[in-house]
């Protein structure tokens, strides 16, 4: 266990950034999101939830897959090389780290997605425990301990001191390089902080959500429930929930004309969008009810059915905070809990 004064963190960031790209929560135009550290960046590790999760760093909202050059009617393909340089993610919370395990199930299953896999290999994760969990948090329901997040290095911000503990080989390598800035610490302060955090988590209103009605068996059991029809109507069919979600991984592949060629890129897509499943001769999810159902069934039933019971939700609560119509996964879980099926 090591520690560093909060006021010295800028030196730590500079030291990390000297050798690696450093991604961390940065406040810009009033909102905090993960971004690349620069000397002028306003680092904000106090805000509990970045608007977008840390998903972007491993699965960017938009990324080029390849470029096609067109010369005299012939095509030549220049593939985008997967990331080859190491980077560090600092200040990512327990729920967002767990979300990477969910994304791994998708992108690291056969056939492996080279772009994502390379970023996972190159990235070192320095997570940050949540000192003040919020009302909308329910990570406990999915077995995440926000007092002891996963990661290569785990940190705790206690008062004006950041405590630092390496958990993996990657984490130890990073720690070794930072030893001149870190001083040895004992565990006492962190243990007290963890006890305080866990006490708050116990009091969180959503910590006791029941997932009994969900999991693989729900794929059949909940599909035809009348609850979907009752609930979907306020849904605006926007993509807010999917884009702030750390586990939503649906994507589109699109072309961007560059004049004498085409840039083929992949971008986040949303199952809430009306054209998501539309093709030239038909669409299998024509109503917003079906699209609404798809999102929650995917997270709470289909995904666990295909991934040994793992849910595709980590309880970060961003959709709870951000839905323009105040519709969210918690309300869905509770509706099924209440009414049964």
């Amino acid at each position: 266990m090591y520690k560093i004064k909060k006021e010295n963190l800028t030196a730590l960031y500079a030291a990390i950034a000297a050798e690696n790209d450093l991604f961390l929560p940065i406040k810009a135009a009033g909102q905090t999101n993960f971004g690349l550290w620069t000397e002028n960046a306003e680092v904000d590790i106090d805000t509990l939830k970045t608007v977008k999760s840390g998903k972007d760093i491993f699965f960017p909202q938009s990324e080029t897959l390849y470029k096609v050059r067109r010369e005299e009617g012939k095509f030549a393909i220049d593939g985008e090389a997967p990331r080859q340089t190491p980077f560090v993610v600092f200040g990512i919370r327990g729920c967002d780290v767990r979300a990477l395990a969910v994304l791994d199930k998708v992108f690291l299953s056969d056939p492996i997605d080279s772009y994502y896999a390379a970023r996972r290999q190159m990235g070192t994760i320095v997570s940050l425990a949540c000192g003040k969990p919020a009302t909308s948090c329910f990570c406990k329901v999915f077995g995440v301990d926000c007092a002891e997040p996963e990661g290569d290095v785990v940190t705790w911000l206690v008062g004006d001191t950041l405590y630092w503990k390496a958990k993996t080989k990657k984490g130890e390598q990073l720690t070794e390089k930072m030893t001149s800035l870190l001083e040895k610490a004992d565990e006492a302060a962190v243990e007290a902080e963890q006890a305080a955090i866990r006490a708050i988590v116990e009091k969180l209103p959503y910590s006791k959500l029941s997932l009994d009605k969900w999991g693989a068996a729900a794929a059949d059991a909940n599909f035809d429930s009348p609850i979907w029809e009752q609930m979907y109507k306020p849904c605006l069919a926007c993509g807010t929930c999917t884009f702030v979600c750390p586990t939503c991984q649906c994507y589109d592949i699109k072309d961007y004309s560059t004049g004498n060629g085409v840039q083929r890129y992949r971008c986040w897509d949303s199952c809430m969008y009306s054209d998501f499943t539309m093709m030239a001769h038909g669409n299998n999810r024509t109503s917003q009810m079906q699209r609404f159902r798809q999102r929650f069934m995917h997270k709470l039933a289909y995904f666990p059915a295909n991934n040994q019971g793992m849910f595709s939700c980590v309880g970060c609560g961003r959709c709870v905070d951000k839905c323009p119509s105040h519709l969210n996964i918690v309300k869905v879980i509770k509706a099924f809990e209440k009414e049964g099926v």
Partner: protein
Amino acid sequence: MQELINKAKTLLESGEVARVLGWKKGEYEYDPEPAFFETSESLKDFVYNGFCGANLSKYMIEAGKKEGKTLVFLKPCDSYSYNQLLREHRVDREKAYIVGVGCKGKLAVSKIPFEGILNISGAEYPDAAETLTVETLYGTETIAYKDAMLERCHVCKGKEHVVYDELIGESADTVDADRFAEVERIEAMSPEEKFAFFQSELSKCIRCNACRNVCPACSCRKCVFDSTAFDSEQKANTTSFEEKMFHIIRAFHVAGRCTDCGECSRVCPQGIPLHLFNRKFIKDINALYGEYQAGSDLESKAPLTNFTTEDAEPGVGRG
């Protein structure tokens, strides 16, 4: 609030309306959702308080396609949106029973700067207090009602409903800011400063389309940005150019029709002050063609769709 529920019950039970469009209780005071109620029994979940900011007028497009009348509760500013939809033949007035509800200014939980908010009292209607008491996981806090109000309420269009079948409840005067002050501040910037301002705001955009989907003026059956037939179908912020195009094209498209209801800014997950684009257009329209408030009536000719020989010719290079 009980008066609204009673009205809804009476009309549902008499069969005069087939459904009621209002707001449904959420988990807390601060997360009510727009909802249709079809039985008297279901009205037990009806709520109307300071957090019912959602403008229900756009839902009336879909409601109008259903059998029977829909009772809808509209706040004064919402009624402008409804009127504008009426002008554009997007809603069926015959199938609406409009109850104009009083409004004391609507609140945004995002404007309450406390962590772990559990319950908020003081936001009730009609008994809204001047101070909100906020119970959090970390203790109890207070904040002035007006400090938690949506931006649009500080520049409220007024207490009058422009369309209704009946009125229930009083409204409060919430204006304490100049509607065009922020637009003027930006107008006074140098081109470089303006560019920097909009770039910093719009680079936050995640293209979730919440602003478009909530906008009552965005009622096209198929948006040009969703069409596969054009390059404009862009879900991602592929380039900063793309982001700027989206919001500016949208602002152009709703110019002269935007009532300044402020829903775009209310729903933006990244807190982009999108209303500023629309308000700039409103300010210019007012200056060039005379004062005009979209949705205020059904008869007046809209400045951008009506040619007169006296029309100003906005020149190029006005900056």
